[in-house]
């Protein structure tokens, strides 16, 4: 098939139109725009960089039209010679008003337009900013509205895709894997939404080019910045302030995007201390920043370099106390470079290189000198990838190579003793994982209705296993409004998480601690997805059936009580397996300026280890997420998000018994505690979950802003004051045993404002 398609290309009887869809007037690439030659019923969807190719067009003049959410459509005529190619960049006018852009952000996708197989879900910055959030607009919380994605608790933005754990989802920023992009233990994701162009979520049936993770991928692409003038975006909330600047570099060298966010909890506490309101300061702060430099728009080759910094921690000044200070700092850094060159609309060469790092350390000092370092952890990735794509009339052939080197070094919870040592076990290990992956994919249009994708990814772990990972997908357009999709694949992962997902702590803290899987035994998974996509007018509906099998998962010994379950699995040599299957419905309906979204999922998930099979704690069988974004007057906006979900699993207590501790030096026992005997692991279910979040905004156009806008907002999380439950634990009450419940988020009102100039 591949040979046949190459021969067809060599005949050179048809031509190609290709180019980049850009926003007017900023010139920024518009991700995932639809480009069509309506007269020939030929369409393509631009990639995350706005690049599109429509190959196999006959010679002549063709009107090419581009459409994109948040933009007016635009068209131009391409004159195509036989066997030739024409570069045609299309400029779609961005709608200036902040709230209007949001209003169309959830415009339904048309079936059959995406590449073969189940479509990725694209979330743009407008949607992220429109949804009510905990204080700040949050990309990860927006991702959690999708039916494929679950949250372990209100406190965590970690992403659980289709029964998988956060380590099994590849999260990239401009192509480079990110470790732990969170603030405040995971309450917020540490990505500035103003810096984002698109977030692409692939929860299964991954193509062969997708990186090596078991469950899915979340690719975040930052904006390039405008090439016409300088702009500013930003916001001030109760938690932090953020400001972004983007614009052209001098002498036409390209564009720049810069954004930075910082909390002022430390400054506010210091001011309160100075005013005598509190006795001690609260020396906690977080900062995140993005910087991106991109080549000039319109060049034959595109390059970009981006850097990301996330810094957070408690840092007591030396003078905080006379004899003791500490530095508890953690953060993520990433650097990525990308070069792409389109060769005559027939070839696209894409090269990426990146490095990312997460480090965390706790140093306890005295009189300014370090004394102890009970926490010292780092995770690093170095990667490089090269991919070449060949476009022919009916085929898109791509081949690539990806090299990943991971370095992990953990010396954590040194010196913890007793109960603490059990809950926070001392882990001291350094390991690495090096791998090379080769991938080959053929996407082809078999007919007007049928398109397919077959590929293979070969993962070679250095000094270890070679894994052949076949992947395939197909899409059949039953009608212009209805498409059926299918996809399946095998996946592998060379790293493992030491988080014990049954622990209460991991339900609250999103941070992951990764180690290398044994080179000869990487974790693996297989999945299959069947879907249907339907759209008519302003309504789109998508349903997906999926099943997944996972093996080589690090699973801790099941304890009855999540508060008594260690944060980390002390040895990743104890592994188990997992399964997940379910159905997901995702519907969007646009009526006038209102957008309604409904996401429902019913799923079963299990883990098997130590001879037991149980439902993982983070899982909820039923979940319903409904949102509405509606105009409120001429310049206002009302956003509602309602979530309902069945309760998470918990283990009921059935008895109590004494436990003794053994002293091998004397061979004697000492009384330790009364322990609770729990029944079948996770055989009970916590009360159901429900939450309503509300956000109200209004945009003003003050004269001094010169066309810019200021949007104050007020939002309430858990507006119904629902008594949601995080965990259940047996306690001895006044009248006997009782189940006490740990709470999720209470009602939290927040306010702030955002601007664009």
């Amino acid at each position, binding site marked *: 098939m591949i040979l046949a398609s190459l021969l067809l290309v060599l005949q050179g009887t048809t031509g190609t139109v290709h180019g980049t869809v850009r926003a007017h007037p900023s010139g920024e690439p518009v991700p995932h725009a639809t480009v069509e030659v309506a007269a020939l019923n030929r369409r393509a969807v631009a990639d995350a960089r706005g690049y599109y190719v429509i190959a196999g067009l006959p010679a002549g003049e063709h009107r090419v039209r581009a459409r994109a959410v948040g933009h007016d459509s635009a068209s131009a005529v391409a004159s195509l010679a036989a066997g030739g190619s024409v570069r045609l960049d299309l400029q779609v006018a961005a709608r200036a008003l902040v709230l209007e852009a949001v209003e169309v952000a959830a415009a339904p996708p048309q079936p059959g337009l995406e590449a073969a197989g189940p479509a990725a879900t694209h979330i743009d910055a407008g949607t992220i900013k429109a949804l009510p959030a905990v204080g700040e607009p949050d990309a990860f919380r927006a991702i959690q509205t999708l039916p494929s994605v679950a949250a372990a608790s209100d406190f965590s933005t970690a992403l659980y895709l289709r029964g998988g754990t956060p380590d099994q989802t590849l999260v990239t920023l401009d192509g480079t894997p990110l470790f732990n992009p969170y603030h405040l233990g995971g309450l917020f994701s540490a990505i500035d939404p103003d810096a984002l162009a698109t977030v692409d979520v692939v929860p299964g049936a991954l193509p062969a080019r997708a990186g090596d993770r078991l469950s899915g991928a979340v690719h975040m692409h930052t904006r390039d910045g405008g090439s016409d003038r300088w702009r500013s975006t930003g916001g001030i909330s109760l938690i932090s302030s953020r400001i972004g600047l983007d614009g052209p570099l001098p002498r036409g060298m390209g564009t720049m995007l810069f954004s930075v966010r910082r909390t002022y909890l430390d400054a506010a506490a210091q001011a309160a201390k100075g005013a005598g309101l509190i006795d001690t300061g609260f020396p906690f702060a977080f900062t995140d920043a993005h910087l991106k430099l991109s080549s000039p728009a319109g060049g034959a080759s595109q390059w970009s370099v981006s850097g990301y910094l996330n810094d957070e921690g408690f840092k007591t000044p030396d003078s905080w106390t006379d004899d003791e200070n500490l530095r508890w700092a953690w953060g993520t850094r990433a650097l990525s470079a990308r070069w792409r060159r389109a060769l005559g609309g027939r070839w696209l060469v894409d090269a990426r290189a990146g490095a990312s790092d997460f480090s965390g350390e706790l140093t306890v000092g005295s009189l300014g000198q370090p004394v102890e370092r009970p926490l010292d952890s780092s995770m690093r990735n170095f990667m490089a990838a090269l991919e070449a794509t060949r476009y022919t009339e009916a085929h898109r052939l791509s081949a690539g190579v990806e090299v990943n080197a991971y370095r992990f070094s953990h010396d954590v919870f040194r010196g913890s003793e007793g109960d603490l040592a059990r809950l926070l076990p001392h882990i*001291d290990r350094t390991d690495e994982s090096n791998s090379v992956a080769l991938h080959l994919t053929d996407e082809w249009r078999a007919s007007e209705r049928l398109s397919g994708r077959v590929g293979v990814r070969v993962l070679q772990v250095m000094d270890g296993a070679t894994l052949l990972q076949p992947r395939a997908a197909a899409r059949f357009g039953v009608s212009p409004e209805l498409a059926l999709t299918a996809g399946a694949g095998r996946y592998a992962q060379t790293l493992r998480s030491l988080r014990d997902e049954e622990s209460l702590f991991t339900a609250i803290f999103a941070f992951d601690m990764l180690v290398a899987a044994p080179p000869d035994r990487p974790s693996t998974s297989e999945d299959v997805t069947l879907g249907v996509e339907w759209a008519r007018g302003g309504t789109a509906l998508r349903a997906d059936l999926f099943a997944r099998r996972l093996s080589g998962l690090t699973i801790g010994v099941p304890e009855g009580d999540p508060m*008594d379950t260690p944060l980390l699995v002390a040895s990743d040599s104890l592994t188990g397996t997992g399964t997940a299957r379910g159905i997901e419905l995702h519907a969007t309906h646009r009526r006038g300026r209102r957008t309604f979204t409904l996401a429902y999922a019913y799923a079963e998930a299990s883990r098997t280890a130590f001879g037991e099979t149980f439902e993982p704690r983070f899982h909820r069988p039923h979940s319903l997420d409904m949102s509405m974004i509606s105009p409120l007057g001429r310049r206002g906006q009302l956003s509602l998000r309602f979530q309902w979900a069945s309760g998470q699993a918990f283990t009921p207590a059935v008895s109590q018994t004494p*436990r003794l501790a053994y002293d091998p030096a004397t061979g004697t026992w000492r009384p330790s505690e009364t322990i609770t*005997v729990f029944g079948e692991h996770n055989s009970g279910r916590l009360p159901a979950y429900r939450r309503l979040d509300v956000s109200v905004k209004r945009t003003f156009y003050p004269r001094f802003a010169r066309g810019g806008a200021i949007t104050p907002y007020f939002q309430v999380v858990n507006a119904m004051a629902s008594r949601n439950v995080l965990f259940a634990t047996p306690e001895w009450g006044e009248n006997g045993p009782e*189940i006490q419940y740990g709470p999720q988020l*209470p009602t939290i009102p927040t306010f702030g404002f955002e601007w664009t100039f």
Partner: protein
Amino acid sequence: MRRHVLALALLPAAAAGCLREPDPFEYTEIALSVHGVVRADDRGLRLTLMRGVQGGGAEPVDAEITVSSGATAVTLAPHDGTDPDGCYGPEYPPQAFPGCYTGTLPQAPAPGSRWQLAADVAGGGTITGSTVVPAPPALLSPAAGTRLFFRRWEQPAEFDVAWQTPNAPRVEIRVDEGVAFQGGARLAGSSCFVAHRQVEAAVGQPSGTRHMYVDDVYCYNGPGGEIQWDSAAVPVMVTAFDSAYAEFALHGSSVTKKRNASLQGAYGVFGSAASARREIILIPNR
């Protein structure tokens, strides 16, 4: 610790009125607990059997308990004292800590031998368990008589402990109680405790190395209080445990019903252990 976490979690939600009220429930089972470890170097058998009572605490259970291996069988007898042959250390009054059964084997259990527990509980019920005695670890380092200097709470004495076992699922490494020396003479009746008492557990690692350190040593002479000393001989002890104990040790303040693969009819452990010791000399730089 657990209560602190709970209190921390409940406070903000209670303040906001978002805390769900507790639900009463009933325990549906009465749990018996057994704790016994057969030691490769010890003829003595110590085993506790008790029953949990509502609200905490325990009460003794009458039972006929037999520990056997091949043709060797020993019936354990109730033991209510706190002498060195008892189940509990001398600091625990026998009235408060019931359910001790002891016995003496004709010879110390050999590594690799399988031992069975059988108990007929008065009023009905049987408890059975089994364990295979592990081989004592080969202690590769430190060398016997290694001399280590330390500066109290400033510069710890640091050393590596390396061991090898055939396949022990759990190995515990600790520096134990030792004796004091002054001018090269052993101080009779002295006891030296290391601080802080570091216990390392290697799970699923039959062979390995652990870095150990001792911040300080306190030596006493019975009730006479702290004594003058210039060096202390303390044993480094490496203990290999069988799979039953390894499983038991992984659990904290809770167990689940299924989690007793090698013990039926009760919670707790019927396991085995084998230890190796080596003395090192700790010398303070005063």
